[in-house]
């Protein structure tokens, strides 16, 4: 079987086609429910598909993966509860759109853009996988650390009104991420010898509490106000709209592929970085960011779906997982008698082309399932609050429990929900908290690895940063972005551009 036949295998085999379709459909709904994750679904499938052939098993998993990454945006837009960590940034502008009665438009754009981002990811996987994976391998601990610092600087973008409160929230998130047994030395941190604290605080529980429960509590204030009427005149965005966002979506998709291909980072960080990028490069957003800007939807949704293709790059070329889901798929390939590793592409190129083909099919099904049934979904937002709020609470409790089948996580979730409500009431943004939790380990572990590698010598550490082109580029980016957020830079820029275009400032 040559590459061509392997690529079209999914297109021509009705059974495989149906499996990818079923997987994608299930994935959209698994992804939409906070706490039911793609990772969980795929690991259950390993046992379930044990006696199957490798092709149908992988086809089903790929469908779920693709659908699930997209599905997270549904609840983010409709209820302000991201179904998955990679949809956190989507909620920032998607939910305000739903509040204006534009949920249909928001979902339509999200779907088309996810499709677009997914395709960019697949194209890069198909055409440039070996060179991208070589590039990804070049990332040293210090580069991951610089990447995490770049991520921390996103606080500025996610803060809203007060940067100081944003920084507080971000620092609080980093602190939450540190609780538990330190994985590098097995020493307890902030555990106070309580067994409860030893395994740390589940990140998903924090996310569901902060977004789900606090949202439900906040909604109680508006119990009597009428629900927003949704206008669903136009779901599929016009060609003109797509063309308008093409340059941005190409940039954010590239961010998604690269971040997805890095073994230490996944779709969640990719989506947040893309959101920040959009905020930085868009001069005149359709609406201010955070108030329902289309750009704020386009960026994270292209990036997180592009990260799917990206995650397969190190998996297929090196046998190294690009994220948690591909880690399980590697296990599945092992069980089915394949040996994922650098030799897989050489010994079994068919498998590679089969996966690329399945991804393409899954991406199409995602578009189809995404664009149908929107009318029904938008009805959720039109429901009376007396029904909606208990539903959000129920989803939150089920979701938090399902992550680890642990009732402790439900308590954490509820506690963070109440805390989130008060933070919200006093103007502390919640996005930076989640950002802090996501980046906490990446920053902490890699800083320690980097400095330990240099014999705990700061001089050697900076010598390393300045002599490696990759590290230097990341370091300069950190410095630039940092200064571009200080008043000094604004004044300097205003002075420089005063004569040119005053109104742009």
């Amino acid at each position, binding site marked *: 079987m040559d590459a061509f036949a392997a690529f079209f295998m999914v297109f021509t085999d009705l059974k495989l086609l149906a499996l990818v379709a079923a997987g994608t459909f299930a994935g959209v709904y698994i992804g939409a429910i906070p706490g039911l994750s793609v990772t969980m679904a795929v*690991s259950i499938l390993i046992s379930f598909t044990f006696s199957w052939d490798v092709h149908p098993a992988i086809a089903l998993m790929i469908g779920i993966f693709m659908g699930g990454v997209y599905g997270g945006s549904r609840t983010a837009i409709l209820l302000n509860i991201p179904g998955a960590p990679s949809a956190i940034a989507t909620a920032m502008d998607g939910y305000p759109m739903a509040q204006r009665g534009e949920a249909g438009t928001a979902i339509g754009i999200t779907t088309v853009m996810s499709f677009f981002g997914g395709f960019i990811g697949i194209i890069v996987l198909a055409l440039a996988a070996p060179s991208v994976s070589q590039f990804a*391998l070049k990332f040293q601990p210090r580069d991951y650390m610089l990447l995490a610092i770049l991520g921390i600087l996103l606080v500025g973008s996610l803060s809203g009104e007060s940067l100081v409160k944003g920084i507080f929230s971000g620092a609080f998130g980093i602190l939450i991420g540190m609780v538990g047994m330190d*994985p590098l*030395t097995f020493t307890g941190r902030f555990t106070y010898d309580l067994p409860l604290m030893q395994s740390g605080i589940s990140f998903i529980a924090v996310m569901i509490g902060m977004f789900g429960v606090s949202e439900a509590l906040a909604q109680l204030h508006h119990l009597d106000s009428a629900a927003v009427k949704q206008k669903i005149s136009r779901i599929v965005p016009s060609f003109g709209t797509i063309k308008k966002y093409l340059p941005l979506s190409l940039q954010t998709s590239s961010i998604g592929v690269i971040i997805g291909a890095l073994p230490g980072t996944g779709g969640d960080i990719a989506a947040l970085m893309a959101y920040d990028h959009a905020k930085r490069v868009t001069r005149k957003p359709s609406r201010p960011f955070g108030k329902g800007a289309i750009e704020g939807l386009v960026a994270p949704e292209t990036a997180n779906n592009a990260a799917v293709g990206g995650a397969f790059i190190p998996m297929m070329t090196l046998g190294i*997982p690009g994220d948690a889901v591909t880690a399980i798929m590697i*296990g599945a390939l092992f069980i089915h008698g394949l040996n994922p*590793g650098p030799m897989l592409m050489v010994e079994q190129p068919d498998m590679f082309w089969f996966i690329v083909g399945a991804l393409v099919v899954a991406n199409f099904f995602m578009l189809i399932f995404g664009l149908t049934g929107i009318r029904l979904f938008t009805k959720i937002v039109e429901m009376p609050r007396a029904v909606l709020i208990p539903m959000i609470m129920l989803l939150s409790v089920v979701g938090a429990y399902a992550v680890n*089948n642990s009732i402790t996580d439900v308590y954490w979730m509820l506690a963070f929900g109440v805390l989130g409500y008060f933070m919200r009431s006093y103007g502390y943004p919640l996005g930076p908290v989640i950002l802090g939790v996501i980046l906490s380990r990446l920053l902490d572990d890699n800083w320690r690895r980097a400095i330990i590698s240099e014999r705990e010598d700061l001089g050697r550490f900076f010598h390393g940063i300045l002599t490696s082109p990759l590290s230097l580029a990341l370091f300069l980016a950190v410095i630039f972005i940092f200064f571009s957020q200080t008043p000094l830079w604004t004044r300097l820029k205003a002075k420089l551009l005063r004569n040119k275009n005053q109104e742009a400032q």
Partner: protein
Amino acid sequence: MKHLIIGTVSALAFTATGALAQDYPSKEIAGIIQWGAGGSTDTVMRAVTPHAEDVLGGTVVMQNVTGGVGAIGLNQVASAAADGYTLLMGAENPLLYKVMGLGQKDYSDFVPINILARGTPILVAGKDAPFDDYAGMLAYIKENPGEVRFGSTGPGGLPSVVTAMINAVEGEQDVIFVPYDGDGPALTALQGGAIDVMPAVLGAAIEGIKAGAMKPLLVFEPEAVATLPDTPTAISANEGYNQYLPWGPFFGIFVRTDTPAEAVEKLTAAYKEAAEQAPFLELMSNRGFTPLNISGDEAQAFLDDWQSTTAWLMQDAGLTKASPEDFGIAKPAE
């Protein structure tokens, strides 16, 4: 009301007399995997269990309960009923919990159903490392003290044990230990040049070695392994390794002590047969594991031996929080 009382009494009698064991398994069995989805413990358990289900004629629902180096999952099984309906699917780590101060329970609170397989430790170097063999590595470390970077996975992990063996046999090596979350991420870092040497399990490194992305230095086995016949064994490099080998991480399935004998017997028989299935054996050999498939006293002896060797090695390396002596772990015979 009368029916209710009769119902309750008979239900009590039913559970109390262990009548359940007669037709074990009469309900779903829970399998608690100590490690995360996609890891080697997870892969091994998900590969062997479907065969065992066929023999048992029941269902085993597997679930990953991670955290605390596997202690969270172990404690969950330890606090479940000793009825044979909750299995612990774990690796070697719990045998070090007590000395490492990670928990009060270990496999002595459990009965081994099956020790499925043992891994082979191997020392690999990055393809750009300035040495090509074990002797070259030792010489390079001597000439460049404090420069060579070893990957590690925290105290008690395979790299720390292998490093302790090297230090015990060859004398203290002046190298840097860079901690990673597991051997997967560390081997990735090895290929990217962030670390120079990594003690890993053969299965995790074999594909990278075949592709020429890493150099095998030494296998920690008494005899050469079939997949890498040209790589020298530790014993051929230094006789001193003889006292520790064979040694390696392992995978096992356990139930609580006091589990009804019938359940233990049925589970043991089921997993024994499952571990003999050709697809499972093929998976094991592909990943470089040595199938053991031992149970009962033989498995217990294996566990005791492993614990004694490793705990004392850690103690002598100064990595323990409490002496193995405090827990009645015998010193290995010289």
